[in-house]
């Protein structure tokens, strides 16, 4: 049996006993308890410590605003810390530990801070710890600060997301909320009614979706409200709801605020409303010998209730009659209070609990988040909404509608000599701290908050803010309204970080794109890597070979016989219409309108700054039909960019853009035997060099499939890029592989592909270029003179962009043929200001040439061909131009 449990009230299930552990000791509670109510019922008063001074603390509240009793529960990855005891549902075997105490709650070394409290006033750390150096003190301070310790292991929990739309969202299912919900539902609206407190269960109603155990945590623009649900179904740890509502009604009630008197923080001193909640919901008694301290009428019913259930009100200290508590006694729990009665006489009275009511603050957090303005109302001695927002309103107590019989007399002029009067209980901010902040001119409400840390505890000021700014007002001769409030920020209550990510974690965090050949690639031994969001084969491993050796083998296959390359991700955009040619003349830095049908041309795209953003080969399918090729990572980006120009700038041009990348799969055959393989697959296209020369394009049948074939080359070898429908690509790949087998053909990955283009000094956008590279920097010096206002052209005319002193792409021939210049390595400069003259952009050992092939951005590089430069690693190289392999390009025209 619990010492402080009454059976006169409470909604717990007294037939279901639950054993739990708190700081290593075993206790018994009942189903329906929270950890807080079970502790209270067991007579546990000392249950927490404050953040800075480690003052002994007990429960102050019964709700989300609790700041004194914070615990860790669970083990391993399921360890959850900084939980308020008031929000932890009691379950069998619960093991809760108070945070931020060492070695134990009762004997906490940190409590020494309390003895030295006079030196730890507001902002003391700004004034000291400077000599010899902050770093000497910081580790100690860091270890002393902080509350709980989170898990080390990954959080195994499941978090779900849901979205909702409704006409009216009502937050809070108290009387005002239920009335608002009924009214809205009766007028035909679809209503969602939300309540965080599990014991509040309104009667079901048509058109009202009731969400229990659910807290509204944030308001975003245009009535998006986030809810977190702690599901009773156990299917997820938390369920995260996004609700878009036409109208939002906040029936969020009020928070009682602490009364300000010396020693108001001892265990056993709690809000009167909390004592009422503990009694009514849980049958738990705050104490047996109770002192009631109040400045308003709302505590009358608490006094009545306490007397009903077997507690004795030993004294009522009424601020309205001039009575004041002068002092409280009891280190680990209040034992007595010294007070001044209405006649001015000091009296001491023994007690085991003090219930305090310092008045009520409308819970306007979400209203404030929504941008609602607050006004100070002397009738309730607090802030209430100044006016409804167009679609967000507060009702009931949240609107401050409790004035008539409330009769509060708030007094914020406070003596400091009787002992510490706590305002922010967790952060140990006292009336003296506020006075000192005022002395030091930290008088604006934001300065006060930041200087004293008032209102920055885990309740974000729910218990402290109004008292604090009212005290500042009384110190500076202003009304609380003149001092003003700070804006509330989301979330309303602390929310698990994991809930925001929901199920979009691991593989779903950022899903990869796979090519139609993904399975075939896997079977061929592909090692996949992320290239611009596509999972692509970097190499195809055979036997136990290294990645490097695989790359060499694959590259040599292309040079000697044939390689098969999965080119499916390469971007393909159909540009169709009477003005398609005109459009492409403006999108590309080079002309496309004079391209003959069936021909292909390499093109460069710029942004309006003149910077090279993409390249690729475009073919003319028909007079009014182009197929634009982009880099694989550019496919989406370029299609969007084209749409923007078309829809926003050249609005009258008749052009249709259709990104078709994923409609087609691609098998690219590259190497001297490419034609032989293609011929053996069977085709109705004349594949002869004269009939189908380099840089041209054909449609026809390949192995019976409808195909588009381009003769372009990124490797410097004879190459056919064959595109077929996505679902036929695997068949084409298999047939091609079989046909290539007699020639010892091999599938080749990105690494070899990249090496082959590097041997040819072909540009790789994004590796050899960056967000500053202009066409001239990569050798395209003439496009600026084109008489078309293509995208980016005007920016090329800036004087600085025509400077010969820019970084230019050149080849480097390393003097040491065995040492590959590392990518990224800087080029040394003679200029003492610049210190570097560029950097290596691409570099690899060539298996065909048996020496490194390297590209670099070098300052004024083209004018320095033949010059020897030194890299930062001491390596010397000669600046060279042209392709390292087959510089004449003879191998392309076969």
């Amino acid at each position, binding site marked *: 049996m619990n010492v402080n449990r009454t059976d006169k009230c409470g909604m717990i299930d007294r037939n279901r006993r639950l054993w739990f552990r708190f700081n290593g000791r075993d206790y018994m509670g009942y189903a329906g308890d929270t950890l807080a109510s079970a502790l209270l019922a067991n007579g546990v008063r000392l249950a927490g410590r404050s953040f800075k001074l480690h003052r002994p603390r007990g429960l102050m509240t019964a709700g989300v605003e609790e700041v004194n009793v914070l615990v860790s529960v669970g083990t391993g990855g399921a360890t959850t810390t900084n939980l308020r005891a008031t929000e932890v549902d009691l379950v069998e075997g619960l093991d809760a530990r108070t945070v931020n105490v060492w070695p134990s709650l009762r004997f906490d070394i940190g409590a020494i801070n309390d003895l030295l409290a006079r030196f730890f006033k507001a902002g003391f750390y700004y004034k000291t710890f400077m000599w010899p150096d902050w770093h000497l003190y910081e580790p100690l301070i860091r270890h002393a600060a902080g509350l709980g310790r989170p898990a080390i292991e990954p959080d195994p929990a499941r978090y779900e997301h849901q979205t909702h739309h409704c006409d009216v969202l009502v937050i809070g299912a108290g009387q005002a909320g239920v009335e608002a919900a009924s009214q809205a539902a009766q007028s035909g609206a679809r209503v969602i009614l939300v309540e965080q407190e599990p014991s509040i269960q309104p009667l079901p109603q048509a058109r009202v979706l009731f969400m229990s155990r659910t807290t509204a945590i944030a308001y*975003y*623009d*245009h*009535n*998006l409200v986030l809810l977190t649900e702690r599901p009773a179904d156990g299917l997820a740890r938390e369920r995260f709801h996004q609700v*878009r509502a036409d109208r939002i009604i906040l029936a969020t009630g009020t928070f009682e605020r602490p009364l300000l008197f010396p020693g108001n923080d001892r265990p056993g001193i709690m809000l009167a409303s909390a004592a009422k909640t503990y009694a009514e919901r849980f049958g738990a008694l705050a104490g047996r010998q109770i002192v009631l301290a109040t400045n308003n009428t709302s505590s009358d019913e608490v006094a009545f209730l306490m007397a009903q259930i077997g507690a004795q009100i030993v004294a009522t200290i009424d601020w309205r009659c001039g009575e004041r508590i002068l002092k409280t006694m009891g280190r680990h729990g209040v034992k007595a209070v010294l007070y001044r009665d209405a006649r001015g006489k000091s009296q001491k009275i023994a007690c085991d609990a003090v219930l305090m009511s310092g008045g009520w603050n409308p819970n306007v957090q979400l209203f404030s988040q929504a*941008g609602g303005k607050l006004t100070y109302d002397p009738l309730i001695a607090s802030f209430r909404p100044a006016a409804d927002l167009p679609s967000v309103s507060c009702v009931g107590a949240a609107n401050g509608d409790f004035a008539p019989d409330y009769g509060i007399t708030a007094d914020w002029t406070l003596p400091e000599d009787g002992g510490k009067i706590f305002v922010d209980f967790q952060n140990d901010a006292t009336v003296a701290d506020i006075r000192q902040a005022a002395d030091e001119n930290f008088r604006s409400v934001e300065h006060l908050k930041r200087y004293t840390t008032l209102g920055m505890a885990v309740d974000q000021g729910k218990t402290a803010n109004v008292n604090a700014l009212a005290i500042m007002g009384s110190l500076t001769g202003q009304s609380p309204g003149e001092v003003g409030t700070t804006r509330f920020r989301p979330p309303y209550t602390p929310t698990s970080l994991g809930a925001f990510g929901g199920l979009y974690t691991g593989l779903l965090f950022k899903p990869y794109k796979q090519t139609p050949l993904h399975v075939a690639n896997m079977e061929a031994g592909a090692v996949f890597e992320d290239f611009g969001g596509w999972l692509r084969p970097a190499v195809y491993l055979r036997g136990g070979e290294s990645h490097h050796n695989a790359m060499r083998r694959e590259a040599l296959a292309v040079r000697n016989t044939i390689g098969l390359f999965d080119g499916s991700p390469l971007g393909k955009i159909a540009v169709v219409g009477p003005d398609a040619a005109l459009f492409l003349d403006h999108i590309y830095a080079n002309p496309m309108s004079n391209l003959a049908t069936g021909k292909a041309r390499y093109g460069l795209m710029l942004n*309006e*700054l003149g910077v090279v953003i993409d390249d690729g080969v475009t073919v003319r399918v028909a007079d009014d039909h182009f197929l634009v090729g982009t880099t694989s990572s550019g496919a989406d980006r370029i299609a*969007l960019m084209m*749409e*923007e120009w078309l*829809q*926003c*700038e050249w*609005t009258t041009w008749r052009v249709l853009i259709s990104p078709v990348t994923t409609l087609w799969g691609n098998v690219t055959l590259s190497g001297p035997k490419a034609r032989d393989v293609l011929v053996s697959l069977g085709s109705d296209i004349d594949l002869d060099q004269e009939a189908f020369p380099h840089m041209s394009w054909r449609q026809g049948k390949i192995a019976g499939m409808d195909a588009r074939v381009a003769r372009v080359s990124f490797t410097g070898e004879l190459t056919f890029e064959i595109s077929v429908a996505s679902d036929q690509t695997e068949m084409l790949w298999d047939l091609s592989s079989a046909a290539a087998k007699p020639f010892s053909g091999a599938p080749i990955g990105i690494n070899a592909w990249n090496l082959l283009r590097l041997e040819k000094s072909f540009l790789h956008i994004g590796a050899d270029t960056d967000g500053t590279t202009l066409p001239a920097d990569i050798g395209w010096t003439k496009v600026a003179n084109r008489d078309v*206002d293509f995208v980016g*052209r*005007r*920016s090329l*005319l*800036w004087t600085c962009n025509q400077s010969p002193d820019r970084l230019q792409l050149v080849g480097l021939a390393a003097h040491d043929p065995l040492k590959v210049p590392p990518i990224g390595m800087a080029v040394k400069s003679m200029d003492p200001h610049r210190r570097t003259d560029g950097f290596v952009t691409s570099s690899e050992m060539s298996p065909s040439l048996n020496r490194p092939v390297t590209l670099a951005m070098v300052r004024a590089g083209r004018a320095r061909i033949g010059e020897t430069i030194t890299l930062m690693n001491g390596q010397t190289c000669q600046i060279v131009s042209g392709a390292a392999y087959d510089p004449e390009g003879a191998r392309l025209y076969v």
Partner: protein
Amino acid sequence: MLIPCPFCGPRDMSEFRCGGQSAIVRPVPAQQVSDEAWSNYMFMRPNPRGVLAERWVHQGGCGTWFNILRNTVSHEIMAVYAIDAAPPELKP
């Protein structure tokens, strides 16, 4: 925010991309455009604290570009109009 796509109706902002201030006139031809005029087109913006005419695209939906009038402090959207239309007069 809830962005009113003129084609699909109101949708969550996560489906859209903002293209910034709308109706900036692109000066051409390049040879006749001064550095100053080009700079004005490229970079100089009133960036008002208040009503702004800006363009958005329903990138995760129909792909349509359109204009809106939006308050940059309250984020209230006062009007939606076609990309090549003039902004409607706002009633005071």
